């Protein structure tokens, strides 16, 4: 590795939510990737992967945004996202969406193979720091977003990324129960959505932890939305935590 001169280039797909509402998470993602030795590119034409339209059944609209996203990212060596949900959209749903499109089906498969969620990417590349055998810095609890754990099967990877950065994880009961977000669902059926979020926060509080970490900006916005102003519990993105730990 010592005579490794060419830094691997990764493209950051920052996601529309992070870009417009939570830019700090994007900055942390860049910091973490750079510290792991990557050259980070931010293709500035990117906007949204099209998941909101897709999940509402608007396939034509979703395809427009998906084609753009494919065109913008398909030639990079790897694409990294601070979101399990948007990673799922690209990896699992794009190929579905373009099943009958001679050109984009192939391109969708190509992009799917090199698109990774942040914690997953660091794990897979062996770029996690060797955790020191000292006392862990902070104990946190971890919320498995539905896309992370059930669609991408990423349960251990984010936890390993956190522990390698010196955190310890105190598990809550049903850490993989949905937080109530569900994209447009959270606006279409807000009473139910909020009741689900309240349940989730209740479970998190029972651990006594001050921080709940998640890998999805959607869940984060949703759950922060029901915190009190001076709440004992904070909800943070995994990129923020990894960045902070250095």
């Amino acid at each position, binding site marked *: 590795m010592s005579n490794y001169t060419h830094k691997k280039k990764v493209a950051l797909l920052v996601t529309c939510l992070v870009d417009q*509402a939570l830019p700090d998470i994007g900055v942390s993602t860049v910091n973490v990737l750079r510290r792991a030795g990557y050259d980070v590119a931010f293709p*500035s034409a990117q*906007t*949204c992967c099209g998941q909101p*339209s897709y999940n509402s059944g608007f396939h034509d609209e979703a395809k*427009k945004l998906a084609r753009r996203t494919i065109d913008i990212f398909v030639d990079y060596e790897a694409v990294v996202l601070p979101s399990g949900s948007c990673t799922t959209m690209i990896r699992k749903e794009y190929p579905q969406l373009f099943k009958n499109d001679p050109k984009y089906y192939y391109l969708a498969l190509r992009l799917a193979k090199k698109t990774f969620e942040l914690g997953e990417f660091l794990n897979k590349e062996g770029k996690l720091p060797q955790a020191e055998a000292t006392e862990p810095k902070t104990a946190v609890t971890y919320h498995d977003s539905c896309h992370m754990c059930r669609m991408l099967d990423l349960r251990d990877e984010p936890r390993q990324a956190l522990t390698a950065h010196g955190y310890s994880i105190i598990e809550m009961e049903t850490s993989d129960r949905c937080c109530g977000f569900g994209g447009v669902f959270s606006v279409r059926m*807000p009473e139910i959505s909020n*009741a689900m979020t309240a349940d989730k926060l209740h479970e998190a509080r029972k651990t006594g932890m001050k921080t709940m970490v998640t890998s999805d900006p959607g869940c984060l916005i949703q759950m922060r939305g*029901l915190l009190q102003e001076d709440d004992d519990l904070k909800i943070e993105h995994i990129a923020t935590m990894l960045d902070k730990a250095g």
Partner: protein
Amino acid sequence: MIHTGCTVTQFRQEATQTIGNASLQKALRGATAHFVDGRQAAFDAFPDGEAIRDHLKEIRGATISNLAFYLEQFEQNAQAAGTIVHWARNAEEAAAIVTSIARENGVMLAAKSKSMATEEIKLNHALEAADVRVVETDLGEWIIQLAGESPYHIIGPAIHKTKEQIVDLFEEYRGRPLADTSIAALTAEARHILRQQFLEAGIGISGGNMGVAETGSLVLVTNEGNGRMVTTLPRIHVAVMGIEKIAPDWDAAAAWLSLLARSATGQPMSIYTTVVTGPRRPEDADGPEEVHIVLLDNGRASLADTSSRKADYAEILQCIRCGACLNVCPVYGESGGHAYNSPYSGPIGAVISPLLFGLEKYAALPHASTLCGACVDVCPARIDLPRMLLALRADEVEQGIPSPFEQFAERAGTAVMGNAHLFNLAGKMAGWGQKMFTKNGTFTPPINPTLDRNLPIRPQKSFRDLWNDLDTD
């Protein structure tokens, strides 16, 4: 109770009532948690469970894709055993078949065991309109019959009722207060009342958990033994079963049964498994003189037909109605069963109701989900319910069902998202707009579509605005 469909507004209203009703919440949470824990323990003690789920998925898939073949085989073998087989294209036909059997035999009272298919065809309604009194003999079904409600859960029709409510219902039925209101006394009371009905009933009506093609047998599982009474005591037994509930042979039936009760209640087997192969034979000690099976299509065949537009949905016919998906569904856990306004609730209800009863009528149900996928984790046939919810949403768009506002918003939103500068500008403008309603760092919009949830504030600089400072290499 006649189900008329479900709009988003209806679903929300019904769910809001459930969420605000502490005792209902408690009953609902208690029952579903009990089922979930039971299922988990049952699978923990059943090392082959996961492999048998794979197997069940395969055999159900293979059966559904050759459904006509197995149905014919089932009919032939059932007829050979002396069963009279009827085919019903829709709910009305099915209800009419059962009603005319009752009428022709001068039946005044019908004893029923729990059956979702008869809920689907609104059989009680049809029978009562023909002056045949119907008594539900499953305790839960009887309770909701007394209450004039529809089932709250596929396998636990009355899980939403508290003990106090049940006491009230019994007292009203008896017309006098009960001396002893312990659960044991209530059960004894119900048994006493229902026993009499079995003896008086001229016809026994059941559903069918499964039909086994190789022998033409009907399989019925119950925990109270009422299924056995309904199928043996009255002179005539009529079963109503969806055409998809076919197992090719007893080998498949064994795999099916090994998962059904485990997934439903966590039992290795239901207490009673009843197999009906034709009416009583001369050497039999008991049993009905006539056995009828009504095979109900009601939209199912078009789902199985791979040349039809709905071919995407054939997988839903693999369902064995165990109810496991309801118990783990966080939306069902908040909304409860009645919000779906359909005999079928929860994830399976959200998929099957629009498919069988009309997408426009049940347009809200495909949206009553966060697509979290918890249902797939537990479904014994590993049915990909979220995939079908997504497909139904796409069908709604194709059929122009979403509101003009939503259609406009989608198109406008996509146009903005199609250009990074426009997108960033729209974000900036939203941020300026937010400023007007932001005090001390809290954004309080005049109308909050998320109700009491705080919305994030769009910061001065988006990530792309910050990128130039970051891009130092």
